[in-house]
C-alpha cells in the first residue's frame, strides 16, 4: 500500500511575488492515476520535484504510507520521476539506461539483463537494446524512459508532461500504453499536464492548480458538471456564464428568472455566477419548453462536423450552444429561437 499524503505544502522561490506552491494538501489513494492540471508556471512540476526530494519544501509534509518522505534522500524514496524531455543518458545504450536503477541497487548483471528484456517487452520495444538514445524517435525515447522508471518497481511514479513532446497520433498510443502499464503494475502514478483533455482522458482524479494553489481535487466528470469557480469552468471549456442574484429564494439572472435546484443552492451567495455547458442547451424555433426558456436571435452558426455551434443573443448576453448537426437544418442566421436551459444542467458558483 502506498497512499501518498501531501499536507499544507509551501514553497517560495526568491524573486517571485507569490509562493510557487501555496498551502497544498492532497490525499492520493494507492493505485490511482492522478493528474496535476494547471497552466504553465502554476507550480505543478515544483510539487513533483518536492515529492522526489529534489527541492525541499519550505513547510508542510509529504508522507507515503504514513511515513514522512522529507528526511529520506531522493535516491532512497522509491519515487521515480520521468522528466518531460525523457533525459536518457546519452552515452549509455538503451539496455544500460533501462538497467540503471537496478545497477544502482547492486543487482548482478545476469538478472539485470533479464529484467531489462522483460521491461522493454512491456513497453513494446523488444529489439532496440543496443541502440543509443540519439538513434531513437521521440516516442521510442518516451517508452524507454518509462521502462527505465518502472524497472525498479517504484512506490510512486511521477510523470512530467508525459505526452506534450509527442505528435498527435503518438499521443493516443502513448496514452493507452501508460494506462495499460499503470493498471498492470498497479503503481500509484501522478502526472503533470497543462492540457485538460489529456487530464480528462487519463486520470481517475484531477488536482486543479492555479497560481500555486489547489483549486479542487475531483473526478473529471465533476469538473464538467459542477466546477468550483469560473476559472476552473473556463479551463475545462466552459463559455457560458450568467451573473445572477438571489431575491426572495428566486434566482434572477441577466437574462431573466430561472429555476435552479442543484444541491449547492443554499451555499450560493446572493451574488453568484451560473454556468451551463454549450452541449446542454436546447434550442428550438417553436416554443415547446415549459420553464427556463428565453427567446433570442441567432448571431452566428459554425458547422463543425458532428455538432453545429450557435451563438444566440438574449438581451445583451451571448450564449454558445452546441447541437447535433443531424436534423437541425431549419435554423438559420438572424432567426428568432427559443433557448432552454435544463434545470439539472445549470451550475452555480460563488466566484
Amino acid at each position, binding site marked *: 500500500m502506498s497512499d501518498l499524503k501531501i499536507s499544507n505544502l509551501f514553497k517560495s522561490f526568491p524573486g517571485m511575488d507569490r509562493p510557487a506552491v501555496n498551502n497544498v494538501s492532497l490525499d492520493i489513494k494507492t493505485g490511482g492515476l492522478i493528474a496535476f492540471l494547471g497552466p504553465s508556471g502554476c507550480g505543478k512540476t515544483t510539487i513533483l*520535484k518536492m515529492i*522526489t*526530494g*529534489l527541492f525541499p519544501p519550505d513547510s508542510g509534509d509529504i508522507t507515503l504510507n504514513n511515513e514522512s518522505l522529507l528526511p529520506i*534522500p*531522493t*535516491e*532512497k*524514496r522509491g*519515487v*521515480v*520521476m520521468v*522528466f518531460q*524531455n525523457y*533525459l536518457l*543518458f*546519452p*552515452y549509455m545504450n538503451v539496455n544500460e539506461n533501462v538497467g*540503471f*536503477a537496478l545497477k*544502482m*541497487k547492486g543487482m548482478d548483471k545476469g538478472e539485470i539483463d533479464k529484467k531489462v528484456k522483460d521491461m522493454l517487452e512491456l513497453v513494446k520495444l523488444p529489439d532496440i537494446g543496443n541502440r543509443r538514445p*540519439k538513434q531513437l524517435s521521440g516516442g521510442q525515447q518516451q517508452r524507454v524512459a518509462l521502462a*527505465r*522508471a518502472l524497472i*525498479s518497481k517504484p512506490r510512486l511514479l511521477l510523470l512530467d508532461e508525459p505526452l506534450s513532446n509527442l505528435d498527435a497520433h503518438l499521443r493516443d498510443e502513448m496514452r493507452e500504453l501508460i494506462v495499460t502499464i499503470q493498471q498492470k503494475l498497479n503503481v500509484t502514478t501522478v502526472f503533470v499536464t497543462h492540457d485538460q483533455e489529456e487530464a480528462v482522458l487519463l486520470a481517475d482524479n484531477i488536482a486543479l492548480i492555479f497560481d500555486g494553489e489547489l483549486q479542487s481535487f475531483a473526478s473529471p466528470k465533476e469538473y464538467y458538471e459542477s466546477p468550483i469557480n469560473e476559472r476552473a469552468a473556463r479551463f475545462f471549456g466552459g463559455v457560458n456564464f450568467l451573473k445572477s442574484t438571489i431575491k426572495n429564494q428566486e434566482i434572477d439572472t441577466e437574462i431573466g428568472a430561472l429555476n435552479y435546484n442543484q444541491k449547492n443552492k443554499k451555499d450560493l451567495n446572493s451574488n453568484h455566477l451560473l454556468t451551463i455547458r454549450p452541449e446542454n442547451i436546447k434550442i428550438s424555433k417553436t416554443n415547446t419548453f415549459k420553464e427556463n426558456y428565453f427567446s433570442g436571435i441567432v448571431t452566428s452558426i459554425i458547422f463543425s462536423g458532428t455538432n453545429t455551434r450557435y451563438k444566440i443573443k438574449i438581451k445583451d448576453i451571448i450564449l454558445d450552444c452546441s447541437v447535433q448537426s443531424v436534423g437541425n437544418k431549419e435554423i438559420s442566421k438572424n432567426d428568432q429561437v427559443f433557448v432552454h436551459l435544463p434545470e439539472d444542467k445549470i451550475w452555480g458558483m460563488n466566484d
Partner: protein
Amino acid sequence: MDTNLKKTNIYAIYLGAFILILPLIAFFINAFSFRWFYPQLIPKELSLQAWVRLKLIPKEGLRSLDGFIDLWLSNPAIIKALVNSVTIGVIVTIVSIIIALPAARVLGLLNFRFKKLIIFIMISPTILPPIAFVLGLNINFISWGFSGSFWGVCLVHLVPIMPYVVLTMTGIFANYNPDFEHQARTLGANKFRTFYLITLPAIAPGMVVAALFAFLVSWSQYLLTFLIGAGKIMTLPLLVFSTASSGNPALTAAISIVFIFPAIVILFFTSKFVSGDSSATSGFGKL
C-alpha cells in the same frame, strides 16, 4: 562553390600553414647544425653539439642507455627545469579545475545580480599586464613566506590560469541540463555516483580543454615565476630566456624545441576535443 575556387582556397590554407611552420623548420635545422652562418642556404655539417651542451644528450661515445640515464640522473639544469615545469603545470591544472568546477557551475546555470561584474573581475587577469599586479603580490608573498618557494610559484600561476579554466567550464555548464543529475538521483544513484556516472562524462570533454589551457598557460609563464620564484625556482621558460640571451643560436633553437614540444603533443592528442564537433563547449546541450 566552383571547384577552382575551392582548390585555390585549399592552397591558401596550405600556404598559411606553411608560413606558420616555416620558423619551426629553421629552428630544427639550427638545433641540429654546427656553425650555420649567413650566406649558406643550408648548414655545412649536422651536429648534436647543441643538445650535448644542453646536457640532454651525452657526449659522443657515451650514447648508450646507461649513458643517457647517468647524464639525466646527474640532474643538469635543463632536467631540473623540465621537472619543475611539469610538476608545477600538473599541480596548478588539477587545483584550478577543482576550484573552477563549482564556480563555473554557478555561473553557467544560474542568473543572479552582478553576475557580469563577477565575470569581469574573474577575467581581469587576462586584461591586466602581469607586471601590474605581480609586484604588489610579491610584497604580500614575501611577508607570507611564499616568495622563492615552489608553492608560491604554484599559487601565483593560478592567477593567469583561472580565467581560462573558469570561462571554458562556464561554457560547458551554460548548455548543461542539471535535470540529468536529478533523473539519476530519482533512479537511485547517490550524490557521489551521480557526479561520477552522469556529471563527469558530460563535462569531461570541456574539462580536457580547460586542462589544456591551464597547463599551457602555466608552462609558458616567465615573469610570474621569475619574480615570485626569486630565481630559486628554475622553470623551462626561465632557462629559455637565459639561454637565448647567451647568443648561441643552435643552443637557443634546441631549448626552444624542448619548450614547444609538450604543446604540440598535447594539441595532437586533444585536437578532437577542441574542434567544433566536440561537446566540450556544449555539455549535453548538443546531444
